[in-house]
């Protein structure tokens, strides 16, 4: 599964309207400029990688994109209209889901209980209204199977899953609850090789269902394995977007590393960046 050719890639047409479009976003906190001109968009069915080293502004980016922060300058369009979300919950309901590194999973609880945490299906009315455990179990098993994970049982505790499987549960949960845009915050950073390839396979599956995946990472190899487009974030600025095949891993790496290296690179490559 580490073989890149297994992923079919999004190949999303430029004419498809983006779900979220960010234009020259700036975000200031007092005298700190966290984002200084970010342009980014995500179309349905593609995986757009945002690459940046630590401190590049990735988490401010996530919070701005998911509606937690309002940008100081610039405009964000959600499905063509100016975006205005007051809380993360609003943006979640509109279809922008963020899977953070801590995954919002509880190890001691079963996969099914985690899957439906806070959004339990019920049956019956009034006092007889109860958690529909059978349906929750059934849906969980089915959704996980779609992602290529065969649970032993739906009441298996999340703690018994590997890091990659947990990531997959979190992604499957977001998709099941209607995510149109899935923001993944460094989903592979803490994983081993095998688990990483599982998560990348999951991203591929989610993309083929028409979800726009924003894959945030500082690992160029992981990004290149699934990404359709690549944007580098450095010192709060985006340095343009490249399509798959237009850029090499070395170039991406050096873009992430920043200005000085960039100048050297330009010299040695004859201005191809």
């Amino acid at each position, binding site marked *: *599964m580490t073989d890149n050719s297994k992923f079919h890639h999004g190949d999303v047409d430029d004419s498809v309207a983006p779900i979220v479009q960010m234009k020259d976003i700036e975000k200031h906190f007092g005298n700190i400029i966290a984002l200084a001109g970010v342009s980014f968009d995500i179309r349905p069915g593609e995986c757009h990688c945002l690459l940046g080293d630590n401190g590049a502004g990735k988490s401010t980016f996530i919070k701005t994109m998911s509606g937690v922060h309002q940008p100081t300058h610039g405009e964000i369009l959600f499905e063509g209209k100016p975006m205005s979300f007051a809380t*993360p*919950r609003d943006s979640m309901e509109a279809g922008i889901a963020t899977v*953070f590194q*801590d*995954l*919002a*999973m*509880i*190890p*001691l*609880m079963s996969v099914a*209980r985690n899957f*439906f*945490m*806070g*959004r*339990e299906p*019920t049956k019956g009315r009034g006092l007889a*209204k*109860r*958690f529909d*455990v059978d349906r929750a*179990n*059934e849906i969980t*098993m089915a959704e996980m*199977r779609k992602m*290529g*994970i*065969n*649970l*032993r*049982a*739906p009441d298996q*505790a999340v*703690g*018994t899953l590997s890091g990659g*499987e947990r990531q997959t549960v979190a992604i499957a949960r977001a998709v099941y609850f209607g995510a149109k845009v899935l923001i993944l915050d460094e989903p592979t950073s803490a994983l081993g090789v095998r688990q990483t390839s*599982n998560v990348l*396979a999951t991203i591929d599956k989610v993309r083929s269902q028409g979800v726009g995946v924003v894959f945030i990472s500082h690992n160029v190899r992981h990004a290149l394995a699934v990404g359709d487009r690549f944007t580098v974030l450095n010192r709060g600025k985006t340095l343009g977007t490249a399509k798959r095949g237009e850029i090499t891993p070395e170039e991406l790496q050096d873009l992430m590393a920043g200005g000085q290296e960039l100048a050297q690179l330009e010299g040695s490559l004859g201005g191809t960046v």
Partner: protein
Amino acid sequence: MSDTTPHTTADERIKAEPLFSRLMKRPELGAIAGVVLVAIFFLITADSAMFTTSGIINFLTPAAQLGILAIGASMLMIGGEFDLSIGSMVAFAGLFFGICVMVWGLPLIIAIPMTFLFSAFVGAINGTIVIRSGLPSFIVTLAFLFILRGLSLVGLKWASGGSTQLRGVRDATENDWLAPIFSGDAFPALFAWLAEHDLVETFKNGTPKVTGIPVEIIWFVLLALVATYILLRTPAGNWIFAAGGDADAASNSGVPVKRVKVSLFMVTACCAALVAIITVIDAGSTDARRGFQKEFEAIIAAVIGGCLLTGGYGSAIGAFFGSIIFGMVVIGLTYTNFDQDWFQVFLGGMLLIAVLFNNAIRKRVTGER
């Protein structure tokens, strides 16, 4: 894991896990095993009278009084909080109930709901302080352990004119139609009928040795069933486990963590109020020492029942059996030749074994190595 794994149906895979290993994962397993072990111990050492109907009711009565508290405590512990003030709450609710009946002369139909409302309010104060301040519930409720105990003393002296006991509750409630639900024995007719047909032991004059099941046992069983149902089969139950397992993760997933926790504090206080009402009507008086150290016993019963001190794991049925173990040990020792004071040693030992056992179970569940 990989795409090539053959797709099997859910049912087949569930069956693939042996019943034994599934049972091993239940939090109440330890408590059930404990009940069996303790029962075997007393079957060997104790007088055979312990396991007659009257003997069993004898040890189930204190077990039930503790158990009502322990079930509340276990739900709160699963929700990730502690309440050290439940023992004092029993005295305080008892005082309020005593005042309702004796000083204000209210009938039970008004006095009992008022006592529950008042207790829920005190529980809500407890919970709100814990949630708002972000302090550990251990320290906040430790403060309330003393505050409520002190208030009970002061209040009793005020209500009784200087004594730390308020007597005469029995006379005041004797003819109240609601009293049989909260005091005395249930199903006396059934036991009389059984005695008539020689199905239970009787005295020589033909009256049954056991005239009925004490109401607290009925309450205890009902509460254990309701709590288990809520925990395992309602969205609220899922929220309780989630709030205790990881409050941030639960909150991020849309669980109203604060509301869940404050409600649990209110439920726990109401459990204390129920014990207060039952014991005050039964004894006919309320005093400031009522519920003394019950908070520790309730937490011990909950831990024996499989609750983790860190929250997010446990069961109400476990607390149910934990309380029965407790009652068996307290009363059982009087049927043996052992010194009664072994009880505390026994209790501490059980607690230690239970904690070690729970830790092992938790590792099994989460697959930690």
